[in-house]
């Protein structure tokens, strides 16, 4: 009896902390993955459109802060975030747009949702989102709610799913549309 009481005492305060533990474990696993490449399929459903839009390409991550999303279908596009720099390139149109992330406070949280997760940088993630984790370190789901009200007006929730140190699904719930990006790790 006494042993069970002790056990309960040990477990009770730990119960709320368990989600935090899981988040920390997932972050640690992600931080241990300095480089990764994955093929992605992105599907957007928008209320203004009568059919979903599909895009395909390759997602590449390199620690500490370089994330590249290279779209090959339906057109070539390169989105690169490195440091404080956001670069959007459309070779078919010859456009190249470079924005300091600092000048785009409404984009930064969306970038960090993925980049800080891949970096396993819990502090940056927490600066922009309220993060909660569910599942197990082997099969986890992190839910992010943007802290900025202005950002929340456009994006209410971002859900990330993955296994160990790999990010597999990014699902963005917008005002009244949603998009789902599924990644398949490449060697």
């Amino acid at each position: 009896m006494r042993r069970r009481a002790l056990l309960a005492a040990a477990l009770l305060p730990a119960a709320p902390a368990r989600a935090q533990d899981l988040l920390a474990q997932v972050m640690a696993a992600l931080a241990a993955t300095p480089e990764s490449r994955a093929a992605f399929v992105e599907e957007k459903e928008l209320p203004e459109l009568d059919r979903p839009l599909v895009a395909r390409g390759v997602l590449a991550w390199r620690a500490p802060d370089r994330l590249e999303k290279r779209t090959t279908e339906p057109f070539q596009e390169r989105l690169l975030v490195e440091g404080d720099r956001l670069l959007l390139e459309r070779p078919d149109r010859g456009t190249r747009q470079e924005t300091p992330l600092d000048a785009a406070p409404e984009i930064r949280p969306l970038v960090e949702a993925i980049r800080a997760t891949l970096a396993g940088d819990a502090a940056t993630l927490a600066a922009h989102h309220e993060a909660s984790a569910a599942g197990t370190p082997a099969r986890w789901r992190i839910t992010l709610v943007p802290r900025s009200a202005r950002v929340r007006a456009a994006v209410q929730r971002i859900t990330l799913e993955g296994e160990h140190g790999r990010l597999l699904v990014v699902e963005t719930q917008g005002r009244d549309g949603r998009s789902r990006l599924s990644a398949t790790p490449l060697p």
Partner: protein
Amino acid sequence: MRRHAPLLLALLLAAATFALALRHVPLRADIADFLPVAQTEESAFLLRELRGGAGTRLLVAGIEGAAEAELARLSRAMADGLRASGLFALVANGPPQPADAEAALLFARRYALSPATTPEAFTEPALRAALETVLDGLRSSAEPLVRRYGFADPTGAFPALLRGWTQEHRIALRDGVWMADGPRALLLMETRAGGMDPDAQAAAAEAARAAFAAAAPAGGARLLLSGPGVFAAAAAEAIRADVRLVSILSATLVAAFLLWRYRSPLLLGAVALPVLLGALAGLLAVQAAFGHVHGAAFGFGMTMLGVAADYPIVVVAHRAPGETARDAARRVWPTLRLAVATSVAGLTPMLASGFPGLAQLGLFAGAGLLAAALAARLLLPALLPAAPPALRPLPGWSLAVVAGLGARRRFVPWLLAGVAVALLIAGAPRLERDIAALSPVPEALRDLDGTLRGQVGAPDVRLVLSVTAPDAEGALAAAERAAAALLAAGAATVLDHPARWLPSAATQRARLDALPDAATLAARLDAARAGLPFRAGAFAPFLEDVAAARAAGPLTPDALAEAPLLAARLAPLLRPENGAWRALLLPEGARDLAALRAAAAVVPGLLIVDIKAETEAMLDAGIAAALRWGAAGAALVLALLLAGRGRAGPRLALVPAGALLLAFAALHLLGERISVFHLTAALLLAGVGMDYALFMSRMTQEDAAEDARALGAVVTCMVTTLLTFGLLALCRTPVLHAMGLTVCLGVAAAFLLACALAPPRPAPR
């Protein structure tokens, strides 16, 4: 001790009153006070800009000495505090971020405001292309942005509007705020109060410092601040510090010298009293007439101390053994009276010159000299004991030197003529044409201001175009026409003007008239949508907004209460003025002034002001005016001399005239650039030279003792003046330096000339 009591009491009283007056009289440092009354429209415009233009309301702040993140935090906290203070029309520490209400207003009015509103943009093919662009954007990674505006603004009127606004110089951003190398966070503030209101400007500078302190700067973070309020305070402080140092030093030296000569602290006090009273009278007279005292007038007045000291010195030095001070004062009075009258006459024309600064100088000096002379004549004898100690005689060799000079008097006209010819051959004197060099603002602060303004991208405006119209709409329309003409002619590469921020109502109406009506637009949109995946109602916000824009009509300058950012950008470029409206155009990259003038001729009434050339012309005009008034003063002095001394008058006048000639020749040799301050000092110098000539002329062959006393008085006067002005020449404040050097050189020359030209007499005993 009892017999000294009245004098001591009077001294204490005068000193206390002077100190009190100094604490309560506001000092100003506005260089524009020393510029002449405008003769042309260009100079009138420039004077208004210098005195109260947008530039005079701009404060620039830099925060440095900490890590970037801390600097950014301080910048944001300081900006929030300053915005809340209500003192500023604009506080910017990063790119324009319209608040939600303003963004909503601008978005609603985008079709009237945006240059992208053209009839072509609303044809079916153009709409088809716009919809394809929206679809493309939705497929891309920029989808969140595209979705936000694309369905209400598929033609991109709003982005085009914002693009038109951000053609400015770009400053690097860190953590969302402006950051220059260093790192140094930058803020730009525009006060609501005008630049003419020194109290409000000082309050604004104080608010900026308080906001910085309230932001709880950590570590070594420090604030650099520049602006009119800071300038005024720094200039006043610099002048005060210079004057304080010089007054202490020169008072000590003069006192030591007089103590040696008079052998009595009592007589020393007697000299100080008229001087103090003179300074007090000058200060109060200027304060009463102008409501404030210009820093330069104050500095000038303080230097006058050395000259006003001549009067009591002359009274005391002329006392013969056994004579009472009262009798001596009565005996010297006719000469003293003529000396004061000529000095004041020389200064009087400045009162009528029309320069506020020069008028202050004239009034300060004139009132001070009069008060000092009256005090020397009336107050001094009453306060001195009946039999003060005798003066220490001058060494015999000094009298021999003077006698030697007198023996060579025939060379004087040749010397003066030679110098005059040499000056003529050397060409016109170099004039000071850089207005910054005249400013009493310390150079370090001016450099900081230049650096901060450069970093924050506030351009150093060299060229300003301006046009007026009876109403705001007319001014905006004229600005539009002028901008179009200038840009089309390639006379400028970039042009900031009010219609860039708010187009004229006529332009806005023309744009709105170009929008198709609701039914036409809906039909074209439906046709453009064929084959694309958009649902039928997807672009309903677009149709609604176009109809609303057509109904709302143009946005006018009086309806900008909801748009503070736009209003703040517009205010410096478009403003009411004397019942009319003035629009300013600021060109960049204007290399060819002739091409600019040719292009500007298209718009009637467009004024081109070349700031640098115009300022130089005004400074030149200022010097010319000072010369004219100086000549008028000289004529007055000559008339007085002729009336007082008859045919000896012209010979007496040769002393100040020759001293001026020699002083300016020496300034030329020293490489000094002549400014209006040198010329005002010349007026004073002429007065001093006149005094020397008059008192030396009291030497007669009949009474050798009286001759020695006359010479002794002038020597004492000269030494005290040299001790005062010699130190002033070492000051950094341009006005004090210029006057000190001029008077110093001139006084020495005047003394030598006065000795040489004094009546011949037998060698002294």
